């Protein structure tokens, strides 16, 4: 009896420790709290009514639908959680970079849980120092700049907003290229090799602080705003100077 009691007490004491030590187990509980309403139990995905609502969910918005998470791997979970893209406040909205309320440990646990759902890609390890800036620039203008703009300031596509990349870490850039979040195309290793990705990441890192030889960059949003500045600020200034010079000559 005494022995049985001791074992039970030990088991009770050890259980939370064991749960904390096993991230998959911890992730399972977090999944039930934040993700299950849209992605369904076991990450099977859902196209119908969810079973519950997460912390950010309010009563009226509980008609969540979400894709299956089986086989998306640690790569996708890490990307969506660290950027604050998930949990999504409203179903149907474009995921945006926002405040991350999960702790580092919770993100790791959720990532481990999602990775355990099925075989999927592991976290990428981009090495920008291996890439070359010029190659990265060429690849970026060819593959990315159409939407993200040439110095990665973000832009527009009908129905969606390609985000600026100023806060994207090298790992997040590498992850996004492989996932294609929201309406972004997905680029496989066959299309953009890891080596090419290193160059792209290096260019994105450069584009966060580009070398503005011309002086004021006006947000790097392209030649049309630059033209507007020329016309409405530069020209006004020139006319003002002309008026001042003319007045002085009149007096003389």
């Amino acid at each position, binding site marked *: 009896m005494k022995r049985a009691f001791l074992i039970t007490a030990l088991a009770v004491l050890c259980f939370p420790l064991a749960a904390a030590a096993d991230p998959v187990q911890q992730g399972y509980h977090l999944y039930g709290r934040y993700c299950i309403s849209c992605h369904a139990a076991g990450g099977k995905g859902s196209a119908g009514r969810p079973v519950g609502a997460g912390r950010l969910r309010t009563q009226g918005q509980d008609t969540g639908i979400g894709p299956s998470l089986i086989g998306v791997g640690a790569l996708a979970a890490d990307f969506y959680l660290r950027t604050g893209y998930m949990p999504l406040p409203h179903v149907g909205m474009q995921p945006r970079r926002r405040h991350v309320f999960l702790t580092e440990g919770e993100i790791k646990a959720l990532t481990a849980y999602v990775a355990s759902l099925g075989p999927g890609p592991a976290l990428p390890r981009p090495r920008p120092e291996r890439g070359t800036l010029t190659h990265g620039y060429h690849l970026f203008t060819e593959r990315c700049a159409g939407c993200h703009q040439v110095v990665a300031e973000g832009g527009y596509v009908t129905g969606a907003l390609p985000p600026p990349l100023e806060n994207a870490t090298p790992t997040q850039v590498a992850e996004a290229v492989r996932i294609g979040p929201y309406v972004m195309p*997905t680029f496989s290793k066959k299309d953009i090799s890891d080596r090419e990705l290193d160059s792209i990441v290096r260019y994105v890192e450069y584009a966060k602080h580009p070398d503005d030889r011309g002086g004021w960059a006006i947000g790097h949003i392209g030649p049309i705003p630059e033209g507007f500045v020329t016309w409405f600020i530069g020209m006004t200034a020139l006319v003002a100077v002309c008026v001042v010079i003319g007045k002085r000559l009149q007096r003389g």
Partner: protein
Amino acid sequence: MGRAKDALISGIVLLLRRRKPRPLGPGERERVVPPAPDNPGWELTAVLLLLAGAACAIAFVVVYVLDRLPAHTQLLGLSLGLSLLFIAAALIVTAHRLIVTEELEDDYPVLEHPEEQELIVQVVEDSGLTRRRLLKLALLTAGGALTAAVLTPIASLGPAVDLVRFYATPWRRGTRLVDEHGKPYKASDIEEDNFYTAFAEGSDKEALPSSLVLVRLPKGSLKLPRELAHYAAEGIVAYSKICTHAGCAISLYRAPLFQPDEPTPALVCPCHYSTFNPADGGTVTFGPAGRKLPMLPLLVAPNGELRAGGNFDQPVGPSWWGVRERKPRT
């Protein structure tokens, strides 16, 4: 023929005949300025200079129309510049050699003097040109030709001269689709949720109809109209990469990760956001484009390579007035 020749000769005789001094009529006054002496040498020079100016202006129009001459821009500049130069020379010759000058020695009075004003008017009237009509005609010719030269570039607002190449495309049945390095695409290279740029093998990549955008759509999402149903191959569809609005390259592909609550797949032009639906034959779903994206029929060769199944279903490129109503030649 004979009548035209007679008319021409009589016209020249009429223009060149010497005018005999006529006795003064009832309303006419004595001339202040003596009538200008005949000056056939300088008159001829002025006329020839004006005609040379006209010829150069016509040369500008001709050079403009013959679009593909070497040093085209330089020739345009040269012809227009020479035309202006000749006309300027003709005006200088006219001013210095053909207009009779008469100086009034007294200073002009400050107050109004109607008689003197009349005199000045008469001086101006009398200091006329000899061969006035011939010179006027030459000036008119030069001016007309120059005006034509200056107005010709208006044709650049839309293709008007060389239309043949708009209807020719490098695509024939069996033409291979290659990437920018010339490597042929295989059907297995084309992955879902990604988009690819392809060119006609052996064609000029800069030419409008050569470039394509290739996408593979998820199974079951293709909803091609009946006449385009055979254009897709294994779920892969090919469209001209040139937007039908202003001719920009379509470089944006909206590829939703989770179809149920995200926008549908779309090809988007970055210039004015014309948006085309790749699933139903390239119809316009948003933006200023006036017509659907031209679609190219595809085949998969036995070795897995992608090949064209024929020519586009529509003319390729931006739509100008009437120019693109005809179908591309096959």
